[in-house]
């Protein structure tokens, strides 16, 4: 019915071309499905919600070089100056800026360190920062349990801080990890043997490293320790950020000029910069698979055109003997499908093997066979489409051609 046998016979007469096509399809399938798996993984990572309205926030670093400066006074004066600028909603000192790629992290226990032999002792890593009470408004965070700390509870130091905090506000992700039973509010986390009470929980707050294995663990301690190097986060009214960022250096230097103002950067840009290498990989892979599929499609197209040219006489003869146009088209479609499916079987094995190799040697996600299925369907459609046009042309070969000699 589908003329499988004659197709096989003719394929066997020109083995080389057929084998090449099968190989092409196999390699294409292996590369595309593995790339898709990596692309999916990176997309998920790049699209993780940070919990902040990044487009309204920017960071700024200052470095004071004058000696004998009252750094704590300067810090609070800087906050006030920022707040006085047109378009600024709120501004806070923050020792570690979210999404910036630089910060601090530590392990905190659910029991004092001297009980670390106990069975239910847990110690979980989180990014943390020390920051005044205004930060919760500046970052516009959603409180889901407990309360934020207030200004009067913040410990303030002039570069000589050493006292440990007694209160902390943590992100929900961290709370769920250190107290998985959901009863974390009001309990304690420990630095060494010193207890710190969890007084509030925010819904979502990404730390400085979006790529870490715990990007959404973040803790806020009520400490302001003013040193020569100070960082601030500023939230502006929508559409005002650009303007504020342009003016801010001048305004701050006018307030106090014995310092360097630097690193004025939107949080969305900071995140993009941090993630640039992943965006690069994503783009390279997308370009790679688009080109690869086009090349393979062109190859199939070229081979079919070539086969048709070679068989013009035979096609004419078939037509003269009563084959319909649709028979001719079907012949080429079936021939292509046979090649395509052989290529896919080979390619599926190759894809899974390649996926395993990549997984063993590199930090790519485990390869799921589903990607092979999706890719195989896609490749089959592309390959049938690339045959359709030349096959149509073949169908239009006049039967009279059979009667002519070359």
């Amino acid at each position: 019915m589908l003329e499988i046998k004659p197709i096989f016979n003719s394929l066997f007469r020109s083995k080389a071309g057929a084998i090449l096509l099968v190989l092409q399809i196999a390699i294409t399938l292996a590369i595309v499905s593995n790339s898709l798996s990596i692309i999916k993984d990176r997309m998920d990572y790049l699209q993780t919600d940070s919990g902040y309205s990044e487009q309204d926030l920017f960071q700024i670093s200052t470095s004071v070089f004058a000696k004998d400066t009252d750094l704590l006074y300067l810090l609070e004066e800087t906050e006030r100056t920022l707040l006085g600028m047109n378009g600024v909603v709120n501004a806070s000192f923050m020792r570690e800026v979210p999404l910036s790629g630089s910060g601090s992290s530590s392990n905190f226990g659910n029991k004092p360190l001297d009980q670390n032999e106990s069975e239910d002792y847990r110690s979980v890593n989180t990014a943390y920062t020390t920051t005044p009470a205004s930060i919760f408004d500046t970052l516009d965070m959603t409180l889901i349990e407990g309360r934020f700390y207030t200004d009067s509870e913040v410990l303030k130091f002039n570069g000589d801080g050493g006292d440990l905090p007694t209160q902390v506000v943590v992100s929900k992700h961290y709370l769920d990890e250190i107290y998985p039973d959901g009863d974390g509010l009001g309990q304690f986390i420990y630095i060494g043997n010193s207890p710190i009470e969890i007084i509030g929980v925010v819904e979502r707050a990404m730390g400085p490293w979006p790529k870490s294995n715990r990007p959404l663990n973040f803790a806020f301690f009520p400490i302001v320790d003013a040193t020569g190097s100070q960082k601030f986060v500023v939230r502006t009214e929508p559409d005002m950020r650009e303007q504020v960022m342009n003016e801010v250096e001048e305004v701050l230097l006018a307030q106090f000029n014995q310092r360097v103002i630097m690193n004025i950067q939107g949080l969305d840009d900071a995140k993009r910069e941090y993630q640039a290498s992943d965006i690069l990989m994503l783009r390279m892979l997308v370009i790679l698979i688009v080109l690869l599929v086009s090349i393979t499609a062109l190859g199939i197209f070229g081979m079919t055109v070539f086969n048709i040219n070679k068989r013009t006489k035979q096609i004419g003869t078939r037509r003269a003997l009563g084959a319909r146009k649709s028979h001719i088209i079907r012949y080429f479609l079936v021939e292509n499908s046979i090649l395509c499916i052989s290529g896919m079987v080979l390619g599926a094995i190759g894809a899974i093997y390649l996926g395993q190799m990549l997984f063993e040697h590199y930090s790519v996600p485990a390869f799921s066979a589903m990607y092979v299925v999706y890719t195989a369907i896609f490749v089959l459609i592309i390959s049938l489409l690339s045959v359709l046009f030349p096959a149509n042309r073949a169908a239009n070969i006049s039967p009279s051609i059979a009667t002519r000699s070359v």
Partner: protein
Amino acid sequence: MFFHYIDLSWRSFKRTPLITILMVSAIAIGIGVTMTSLSVYHMMSMDPMPHKSDKVHAVQLNTRDEGSTWWTEDDLPQQITYQDAVNLYRANVPAVKTPSFRTGYSIHFDDDSIKPFIENIRVTGLPFFEIFDVQFVEGQPWTQEQEDNAEMVTVISRELSEKLFGKESAVGKQVYYDEHLFRVIGVFDNFNHHIKYYDLTNGHFNSHERAFIPFSLTVPLEINNWGNTNGWKYQDIRTFEDKLQSEQHWVQFWSQLDNPQEFQAYQEYLTNYLIEQEEKGRFEREAPSFGTRDLTDYLDYMGVVTEDNRVLVAMSFMFLSVCLANILGLLLGKFLKRVPEVGVRRALGASKRDVFAQHVVEVSMLGLLGGLLGIALAQLGLWGVRTTYSYYSELATMDLTMLFSAPIIAISACILAGLFPAYLVCKTNPAICLKTQ
């Protein structure tokens, strides 16, 4: 004969323009993709000091308890503690050795002549300049005596010197690093390698420091490191003195060992040193564990060539193979169609070798065209890399090696693809072809 074959190839291209364009673009795209990822790989895997990279060694000490893990493959921290750095620096073993770490200050003249700016500054010992072949264009590095006396002296790069003092000589000038007044005693030639090979702990391709100050100033100026500080056990660290005495790792250490004897002696020294330190009760280990990788091994160990790039290189070579299969198929068709014509040439006296040579020349021409076009595409690709990731702007370029390898890879690939079709063509018996005419 060669030029005649080139002429024949050209005629053949003109006869089937569509197929030729298809083949040239296939090879061009294949080369373009491959050269884009290969160029980045080439820049990442480059040896920064080929003349002595086997002599320069990164020293790593495992001064942690048995069982404490770290993210390197052998659990060795990349940096050492301050106390170990001082001990190793003072050690009486035949080696050129130095501690080193990065800090930073605001640079200014305590007046309005320049706008103050932040600068990364390296704190290191005098031997650093010998180990890493730092060339001075003016003045000298500090002397051992100046280092021992912790004098406030600094050497700066030519670039920074031009920024601060313009065309004037920088030597003897004074400059403020924060509130500290330093005297410039030397100007060194800019580091111009894209890999920051002497400090891989904070980004492998970060910009080089443009100012250096003596390691002996660490204590009097209480210099804090700008970079990673890694602890492994709980210690109550409040003051700078606490940090110096602590088990935190934050100093890099380099040794230049010129011959196998020195290398051997240094290994023995480190083993004994670690045993001695363990006896002091600082840590508990079953056996002393340390690393003295040479520079090339160390770059590899630190993963200077990124995983992403390795994956991309592997994938682009597979891509190139698809392009080749494609071309092979097309060449097969094209050459076989030409069998009758070849029959005439053979009958007129051309040998099989002549016919074979003619076809190899033709595919080489394809390769050359594809390779040249591929270079253009790779430039486009590298431009895309640079715009997406400005950090790679020094890496995403083609040096001469890559520029020349592109057409060579393209031509060899095409010849590889053309061998089988060419062989088929010259195998045919001229008599049969002539008969059908």
